[in-house]
C-alpha cells in the first residue's frame, strides 16, 4: 500500500525556518514508521536525518513526535496510524537536523541524580542477597531506555527546562528503591531542589508517552511522598 508522510524538516546549515516535507512511499503491512522514514531516506531524499539503531524498541534512539504523540518510530506500525503520518522531532530539545535533537542536556540531568549503585561496603565473595519482593520494588523503573519521550512530552519541562524531568527521576527511583543502595541522601537532595520533583504537576503525559510502559507519574509520586514523609 502507499502512504503519505509529512515530515518536519530543518537543517540549520541552510534553512532559516522549519518546513514540511511531503512524501509518498510504498509500504508493507508489517512496516514500522521507521521503515517508512527509511524508504524516504533511501529512495527519495537521503538528506533526511534521523537516529535509529535496534529497530525494535530497545535502544531508545528514535523517539519522535508521530501524529502528535511521542513514540518510538520503530515501535509503531504504519497500518495502525491515520494517514498522512505526521512526524516531527521531540519538543523541548534543540533541533540539530530534521528529527535529530540535542540530547546532551537530557543526559546531563540523568547524570545529576547519580544514576549508579552507591554502596561502599565491601561486597561478599558471592552475590549480595535480595529477596524477590525487594527486587520487585524497583522493577518498573529498571526498564527505562533513556529515549527522552517522557521528558519531551512534559508541559512542566516545556515551561521550564531547568526541571530535571521525568526520565532523570525514573533513574533516581530505580536506585532509591533498591535495597542494596546507600545513596538515598544525596539523591533525594537533588530531587528536593527547585528543579526537582516538585515541578511535576501530575499531568500523566510522561506515563502516556513511555514506550516501555513505565508508570512514570507513579514513580514521581512515590518520590514526592518519600521526601515529604522521609520514608523510602
Amino acid at each position, binding site marked *: 500500500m502507499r502512504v503519505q508522510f509529512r515530515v518536519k524538516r530543518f*537543517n*540549520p*546549515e*541552510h534553512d532559516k525556518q522549519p518546513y514540511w516535507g511531503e512524501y509518498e512511499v510504498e509500504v508493507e503491512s*508489517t512496516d*514500522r514508521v521507521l521503515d517508512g522514514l527509511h524508504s524516504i*531516506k*533511501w*529512495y527519495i*531524499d*537521503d*538528506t533526511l*536525518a*534521523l*537516529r*535509529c*539503531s*535496534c*529497530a*525494535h*524498541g*530497545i*535502544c*531508545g*534512539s528514535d523517539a519522535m513526535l508521530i501524529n502528535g504523540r511521542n513514540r518510538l518510530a520503530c*515501535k509503531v*506500525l504504519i497500518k495502525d496510524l491515520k494517514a498522512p503520518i505526521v512526524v516531527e522531532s521531540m519538543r523541548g530539545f534543540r533541533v*540539530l*537536523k*530534521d528529527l*535529530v535533537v540535542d*540530547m546532551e542536556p537530557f*543526559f546531563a540531568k540523568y*547524570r545529576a541524580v*547519580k*544514576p*549508579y*549503585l552507591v*554502596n561502599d561496603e565491601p*561486597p561478599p*565473595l*558471592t*552475590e*549480595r*542477597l*535480595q*529477596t*524477590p519482593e525487594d*527486587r520487585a520494588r*524497583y*522493577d518498573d523503573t*529498571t*526498564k*527505562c*531506555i*533513556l529515549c527522552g519521550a517522557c521528558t519531551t512530552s512534559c508541559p512542566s519541562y516545556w515551561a521550564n527546562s531547568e526541571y530535571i524531568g521525568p526520565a532523570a527521576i525514573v533513574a533516581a527511583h530505580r*536506585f532509591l528503591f*533498591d535495597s*542494596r*543502595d546507600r545513596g538515598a541522601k544525596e539523591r533525594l537532595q537533588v530531587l528536593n531542589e527547585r528543579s526537582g520533583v516538585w515541578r511535576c504537576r501530575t499531568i500523566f503525559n510522561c506515563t502516556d508517552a513511555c514506550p516501555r510502559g513505565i508508570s512514570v507519574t507513579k514513580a514521581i509520586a512515590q518520590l514526592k511522598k518519600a521526601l515529604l514523609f522521609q520514608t523510602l
Partner: protein
Amino acid sequence: MMYHRHDAIIVGAGGAGLRAALEASATAEVAVLSKLYPTRSHTGAAQGGIGAALGNMEEDRWEWHMFDTVKGSDYLADQDTVEILCREAIEAVYELEHMGLPFDRTPDGRLAQRRFGGHTRNFGEGPVQRSCYAADRTGHMILQTLYQQCIKNGVRFFDEFHVLDLLIEDGGCRGVVALELATGDLHIFHAKAVLLATGGFGRLFKITSNAHALTGDCVAIAFRRGVPLEDMEFYQFHPTGIYKMGILISEAARGEGGILRNRDGERFMQRYAPTLLDLAPRDMVSRAIHAEIREGRGIGGKDYVHLDLTHLGRDVVEKKLPEISDFIRTYLGIDPVKELVPVQPTAHYAMGGIPTDVDGRVIIDEQNTPLPGLYAAGECACVSVHGANRLGTNSLVDILVFGRRAGRHIWRFVREADLLPLPFEPEAPIRSEVSRILEGTGRESVADLRRMMQQEMMDKTSVFREKAGLQEVLDHLEELRERSRKIRVQDKGHSFNTALLEALELGYLLDLAEVTVASALARTESRGAHYREDYPKRDDVNWLKHTLAYRTPNGIEFRYKPVVITRFHPEERKY
C-alpha cells in the same frame, strides 16, 4: 582538524567496550568513542541471560560449562580460552551484581538461573539451569549497569563519533580518525593503545536480529589495514526470529518450556536432537527448521515454523518473558499466551572476527604475533571461545570476561609503552574517501546495492551453503563493488550526514561479505554454523583448524592455525 591525545581509545560502547573502559580507566586515561550514544549499543538487545556455573539451582561446575561450550563450538573453539571464559564467568556475574545489576532472584535472595540451549549437567546428561537473567532484558540491564558505573568513575565519552580509520604504521597502532556526526569534522585521536569493541555485522544479511548500526566498520577497517580475519565462515543464525522481521525471540522462550512445531503441529526437534530437543544448540535447530521448510512442513508450506508458548500459562509468559511478549503483540498483533508465533532463523552472531589472544591483543599470524597497541574484544573479536557455533548466553560472558582482560592489559601496556608519532597527514586517506563519495556523480544508490547484497547473502550464504551458490555470490559481490564506485549521495552537508556514513558502511559490509563467502568457499567440510551441502560431514583430519583470511593485492589469501585442544577430544556431536 581536531587533535586529541589519550592513553587509550576504546571504540564502541557496548558491553565489551564499557567493561574494558571500567577496568582500564582505573589507572589509565581512557576515552570511549561510539557512533551512537552508549546506551543505544546492541548489548542492550540481548535477552535471555548470562551463563555461569554458580550452581544456585542445582549442582553445576565450570568444567561442565566448558565441555558444553567446546562441544557447542563443534570442537573448533580454543580450549585454553574456553577454560578462562567458563572459570571467570562466575566472578564476572558476581561483579555485575556488586555493580548493582538487577538480576532475578530465587526465593532465598540468590541469583536465579534457568535453562538455555546446549547447557547441560555432567557432560551432556541433560539440561542444567545455568543462565543468570533479569527477565528477558538481561542485556539491557548489563548495558545500563556498565554505563552507570562508567559515569560513576568519570570515564570520558565521545558520543556520536564515527571511527573511520585506524592509524597503524610500522607494526604499531597509534590511534584512530573519527568523524564527529554533529559537525562532520574529522578528529585525530592519538593514543598508545586502541581497543576495538564495535560488535557484529548482521547487516550483511536481509533477515537479522542485529541493529542498523551493526555494519562491522572497524572489523573491515582492520582488515584493510592488514589485520587478518579469523573464522569468518562461521556466522550464527538464531532459530527464532520473528517471521519476516528478524527480531529476536530469545532462547529463553524455549528455556522456559517453549516448543517448535511444524505445519502438522509436530514437535520436530524430537527427530533431530532426542535428548535436548528444542534446547539443542542454535546451529542444529536452525538447520532443522530449514530442513522442515524444504520438505514442505513449514506453516502453510511457507518459510517459517511456529514457536508454541501457549502451554506455559500467562504467568510465566508475562513475568519471565515480558519483552518478547511485547514484541509479539506489537509487531505481529497476536497474544503469545493464546496463539502460535511464526518464526524463522535470523542472522544473529559472528563467531569469527579480529583474532586476539586471551588478553585482547590483536594477533596477526598463526604464531600468535601481537600487533602492539591494538586490542579487540566482544563480537568483533575472535578469541576463539565460540568456535564454529556459539552457545546462547556465552556472548555476554565473552564481553565481560574478555572486555575486562583487555582493559586490564591495556592499563599495564600504556604504563610502559611510548606514544608513537602519528603518521604523516593521518587523516588524508579518509578525507579523500569522504570527498570521493560526496563528489560522486554516478547513478548508483547505496540502498539498492545494500539490498542486493543482503538478499544474495541470505539466499546463498546462510544456513545451507554449496560451492556453486557461494561462487555466484562472490561474482555478484565483485559486480556490486564495481557499482559502489559510482554511488551518488544527495546530502552534501556537514551535520548528521548519515547518507555519507551509510555509503561508507556499505563499503565495510561489502568487504566483510567477500571475506565471509571466500572463507566459506575454502572450507570444504561442515562444522557448526558452516554447513556445506556438498561436504555434509565434519572433517577433523583436514579442517580442525582456524581460518585466517588476509587481504592482499591478489585478493584474499588464507592461512590456517591449529585449534588448541586441552581437555576434550573431538567427538561426534549428538544431543
